[in-house]
């Protein structure tokens, strides 16, 4: 089978027509001559007309073939010789090898008893590199550098060996599908015909993301290539997995999470910090001491005894005295296990003096409990002017401008009859970039306008389109809530009782089917089964839709005691997301988008106090300061001269890396649907990847030889005729 390695240059074959075009142009330039010896010309033509024609045709053919051979050489045809022996062996090296070495240098590679698993992986990688020959191309793609600009393949195998030998584990999480995908992308930069995708992994299960079937289906399809692609070509590379024997790594205690007991942390109020410790060992419980610190100051230490395969929550209580950015760090002290990287964890918390909330009231002159959002304003900020968790600003629709949005984290719309298109755009941008939006309906809401501009058939900012307003003869009652949702954190265990007296006289029936099902979260339903309160994530933000009014026009819910904790829960949840995120994974950059004056320099430092380079860029259409990827876990500080204190960013390893569960060989090969060679030891690699077993040849040299031969032939023919 023949593969063309530079298919983009097929257009060069059009040059074959050049000799014909030149010939035709040449024929058009005719000069006239009076000639006496016509007799000889006529005699010559009578005798040699056919030969002249054939000579001309042959010369044209030779010239076209010459150009064609050069063009074909540039397309780089490669002939792949497939034999039954090769097929049986499973490894077919096609001429010069184009190898992409995908190295899973994730945090789990650091695990190990005598030495990290990465050392065994290196031996496999070096054995593989030994199987390559001069002229083979190789690229190195590291898990820790995914997302970095791709590099061109190298021919320096010895240099790569030295690089591989000096490799150290990173703190990033494994994502095998992403790594294979990056490998396929990198393979496009190669030109050698024999394509090999070599995955060097520690064989831990979590990184394979086997639950993500959609990604795997797409990846498998990409690895299979077109139906007629031969195995070992760049369209369908040979996949080789190099994984050391999966030793039992069952001695690992890890802090896998730090959580707050509320969505919104207010200054001066105690907050619960829940540290989750997991024991991935299989035998016996493990004892450890969990130490918690806030901004580096220890706030307490508590013992934890975690059963084998179990988890334990260790709760600390801390009062954040002032508003600002905090970092909570939890660590296992005096503890040693197979993977030290997950023995500590950090959480960035933004403590708010109050969350700025903008209420856009559908009434013309809203005041007090009047208007569309009077009850909501009273629920969130009952005593304006005094400190509270919410700082509410209430305006009418006429006062609403896009520029107002940048100062608020939560916006509530109360029964608005209409919104200008510019405002709709501004609200969509606000939500997508992390804002929280609460939409209340009512008698002034225009069904057609809302569906057309706000919902846009499920593509707008509204969680879902509306069907029609309903006024059932018997008022509906709120019935079921989504238990455990942060919105209902203010309700006790008897939450059902809180809704019994509330009646919904009118509401809009929601067309939930037109929302992308899984994204729509129904928080509160009525006794007739219709949704009353739904939530949907849009971009980085959240939108909550109340199917009825937020005042007493359609429901007496605002008159119930449950209304206050409900609305506070909703507003708190909507305002709890700090965007851009400050809790990061290794490899993520710092993104700070509240840049008010780009001319004033900001600075940042890593956990050891060393400065980090910052650049000015953009994030979701806003001016932002960005750092380079943060590769090590810990707390990073960003100093904004406009703010009194630093902003803290927490980088922690992915909890999934702590499990260290080995993946079976069968699972690995099944994930890739066969066509995979799996080696566990250098001897297996040597036995199967002997560089002498090269089965195919590149034909470009022959094309050039052919072109050279044709050039001589053309010269000879031309000289003979001259």
């Amino acid at each position, binding site marked *: 089978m023949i593969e063309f390695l530079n298919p983009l240059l097929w257009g060069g074959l059009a040059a074959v027509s050049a000799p014909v075009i030149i010939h035709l142009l040449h024929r058009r330039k005719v000069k006239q001559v009076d000639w006496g010896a016509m007799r000889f010309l006529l*005699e010559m033509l009578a005798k040699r007309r056919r030969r002249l024609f054939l000579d001309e045709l042959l010369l044209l053919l030779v010239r076209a073939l010459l150009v064609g051979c050069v063009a074909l050489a540039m397309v780089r045809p490669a002939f792949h010789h497939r034999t039954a022996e090769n097929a049986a062996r499973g490894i077919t090296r096609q001429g010069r090898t184009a190898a992409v070495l995908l190295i899973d240098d994730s945090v789990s590679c650091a695990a190990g008893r005598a030495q990290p698993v990465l050392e065994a992986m290196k031996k496999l990688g070096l054995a593989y590199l030994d199987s390559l020959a001069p002229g083979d191309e190789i690229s190195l793609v590291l898990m820790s550098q995914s997302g970095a600009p791709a590099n061109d393949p190298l021919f320096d195998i010895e240099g790569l060996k030295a690089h591989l030998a000096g490799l150290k584990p990173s703190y990033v999480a494994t994502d095998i599908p992403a790594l294979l995908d990056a490998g396929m992308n990198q393979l496009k930069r190669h030109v050698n015909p024999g394509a090999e995708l070599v995955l060097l992994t520690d064989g831990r299960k979590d990184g394979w993301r086997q639950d993500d079937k959609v990604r795997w289906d797409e990846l498998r399809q990409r690895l299979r290539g077109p139906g007629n692609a031969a195995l070992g070509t760049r369209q369908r590379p040979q996949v080789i997995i190099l994984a050391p024997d999966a030793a039992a790594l069952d001695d690992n205690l890890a802090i896998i999470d730090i959580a707050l007991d509320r969505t919104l942390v207010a200054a001066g109020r105690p907050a619960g910090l829940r540290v989750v410790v997991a024991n991935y060992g299989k035998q016996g419980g493990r004892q450890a001491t969990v130490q918690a610190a806030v901004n580096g100051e220890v706030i307490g230490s508590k013992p934890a005894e975690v059963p084998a395969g179990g988890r334990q929550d260790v709760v600390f209580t801390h009062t954040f005295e002032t508003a600002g950015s905090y970092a909570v760090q939890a660590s296992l002290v005096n503890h040693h296990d197979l993977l030290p990287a997950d023995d500590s964890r950090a959480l960035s918390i933004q403590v708010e003096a109050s969350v700025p909330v903008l209420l856009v009231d559908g009434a013309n002159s809203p005041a007090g409990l009047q208007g569309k959002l009077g009850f909501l304003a009273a629920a969130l900020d009952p005593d304006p002017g005094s400190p509270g968790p919410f700082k509410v600003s209430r305006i009418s629709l006429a006062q609403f401008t896009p520029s107002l949005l940048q100062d608020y984290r939560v916006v509530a719309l109360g029964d608005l009859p209409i919104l200008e298109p510019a405002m709709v755009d501004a609200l969509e941008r606000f939500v997508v970039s992390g804002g929280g939006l609460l939409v209340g309906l009512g008698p002034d809401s225009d069904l057609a306008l809302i569906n057309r501009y706000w919902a846009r058939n499920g593509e707008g900012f509204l969680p879902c389109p509306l069907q029609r307003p309903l006024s059932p003869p018997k008022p509906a009652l709120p019935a079921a809530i989504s238990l455990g949702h942060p919105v209902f954190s203010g309700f006790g265990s008897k939450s059902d009782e809180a809704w019994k007296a509330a009646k919904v006289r009118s509401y809009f029936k929601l067309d939930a089917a037109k929302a992308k099902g899984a994204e729509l979260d129904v928080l509160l339903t009525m006794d007739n089964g219709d949704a009353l309160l739904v939530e949907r994530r849009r971009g980085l933000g959240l939108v909550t839709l109340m199917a009825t009014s937020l005042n007493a026009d359609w429901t007496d819910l605002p008159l119930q005691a449950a209304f206050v904790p409900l609305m506070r829960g909703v507003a708190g949840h909507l305002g709890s997301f700090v965007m851009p995120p400050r809790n990061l994974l290794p490899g993520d950059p710092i993104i700070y988008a509240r840049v008010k004056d780009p001319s004033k320099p900001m600075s940042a430092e890593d956990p050891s106090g060393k400065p980090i380079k910052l650049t000015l860029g953009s994030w979701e259409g806003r001016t932002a300061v960005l750092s380079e990827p943060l590769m090590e876990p810990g707390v990073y500080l960003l100093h904004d001269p406009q703010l009194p204190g630093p902003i803290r960013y927490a980088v922690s390893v992915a909890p999934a890396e702590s499990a260290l569960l080995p993946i079976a060989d069968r699972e690995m090969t099944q994930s890739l649907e066969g066509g995979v060679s799996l080696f566990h030891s250098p001897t297996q690699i040597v036995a199967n990847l002997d560089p002498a077993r090269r089965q195919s040849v590149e034909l470009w040299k022959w094309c050039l030889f052919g072109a050279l031969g044709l050039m001589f032939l053309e010269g000879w023919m031309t000289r003979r*005729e001259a």
Partner: protein
Amino acid sequence: MTLLDKVHREVIERLGNLSVTARQAVESVLAGQHRSVRRGLSVEFAGHRQYQAGDDLRHLDWLVYARSDRYDIRQYEEETKLRATLILDTSGSMGYGSTRQTKLAYAQALTAALGFLMIRQGDAVGLVACDTAIRHFIPPGSTMAHLLNVLATLEQTAPGNETSLAPVLDEIAGRLNRRGLVILITDTFDDPRALLNSIQFLRHRKQEVRLFQILDPQERTFPFQGMTEFVGLEHEPRLKLDGDRVREHYRQIFQDHQQRLQSGCHAAGVQMETCWTHEELFTVLIRALAWK
């Protein structure tokens, strides 16, 4: 410049400017060129010598024997007035010329020069101008007035129709009843077989034949490059050809033609001289006069 001027320049001035030795050589070549082919009309006494066995007794001088009783053989040379016919080809192809003159112009000058030289040594010279047929015919004469008549006729000739010398030569052969010399001046762009047959016929009619082939240098080299449309001078169809590509084939055909002519002339005992129009006329004359 008239033909007379040309003859004056090419023959009298040039030959006159030759060194004495060279001129004598030319003249000596000229002298006795036309050794008589028949006897009797003009016999010039040269002297006596002693009889030797085998001598023809008819040449014994009986008067000397009667007077002195010696056997002397009477020696003499017989010379006759040569009757030469100059046949000039005026076909269309003779109108070609890549140098400063056409082949016809060159041929006219050559004809005039030969005529002059022959009349100067007392021979009779006639002229035939022809293409497919005889266009001008002047019977042989040996006076200078006749030469002027010949030159005037030559000046009137112009390139005409196709080349077809064979029937013309056959017709001329029929008109020539006495032995003589036929000088054929042509580019020979004719069927060589028919031409050679006609020459053979002339030879059969007891005519000494000499052939001057007039050619343009480009007709040998064929220097045309790229696509060229060749327009024939004898009403042939036009041809569009790539000069570079057909050159070798053309040259081969040309060489074959020349080869055939030369071998045919050699077989017929006809002396053939190829004259290139870029050559000086007098060098051609010297070469031609050196013929044996």
